[in-house]
């Protein structure tokens, strides 16, 4: 079966622009997660969805970051007014209600 997919695979943007990153979880997985992998910070949790609701947004680094999930499936992570420190690989994962998480290939974001 299909795994977690993410798009785009690479995104280069200019400082100050907004970007949207998309995640398609494994079919039937109700939980969805966003993580970020950067050189200085390693892999860090951003946000957790259970269905369409986000009970834990504690990892979002600033109010420029937001995420939504519709139809209990696709999720979009939006970064407004991008800064150079936002450059990182953004990883999405999904799981059944709880338990083992499966990761997508990531979106590499470069802010010039």
């Amino acid at each position, binding site marked *: 079966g299909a795994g977690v997919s993410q798009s785009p695979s690479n995104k280069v943007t200019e400082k100050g622009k907004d970007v949207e990153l998309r995640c398609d979880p494994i079919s039937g997985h109700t939980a969805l997660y966003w993580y970020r992998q950067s050189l200085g910070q*390693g892999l860090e949790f951003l946000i957790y969805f259970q269905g369409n609701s986000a009970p834990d947004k504690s990892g979002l680094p600033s109010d420029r970051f937001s995420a939504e999930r519709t139809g209990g499936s696709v999720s979009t992570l939006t970064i407004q007014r991008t800064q150079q420190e936002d450059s990182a690989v953004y990883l999405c994962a999904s799981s059944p209600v709880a*338990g083992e998480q499966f990761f997508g290939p990531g979106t590499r974001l470069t802010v010039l």
Partner: protein
Amino acid sequence: GIQVEQSPPDLILQEGANSTLRCNFSDSVNNLQWFHQNPWGQLINLFYIPSGTKQNGRLSATTVATERYSLLYISSSQTTDSGVYFCAVGDPSNDYKLSFGAGTTVTVRA
């Protein structure tokens, strides 16, 4: 939050050698996963192992939850085993929130 320490940070192996990677964590956990990050950045699931022992081919893992550590064993290493190995544990209060160690970079030489 929970602290995760992996050792060693780097490991260089000759093809065919065996190795052990260690993951120490600072609190009790209900969720522990081992991943291999390949050269393209993809995180490959190796084990979901909050406790006990599992084996999958040349790889096996053991988690001793009461002593707060997990071990990943690689036997008869191959060049394709090269990459970064991550241990990730779930926060005790919110076990869906994985905290990752810094990883062990494994290089297997032919």
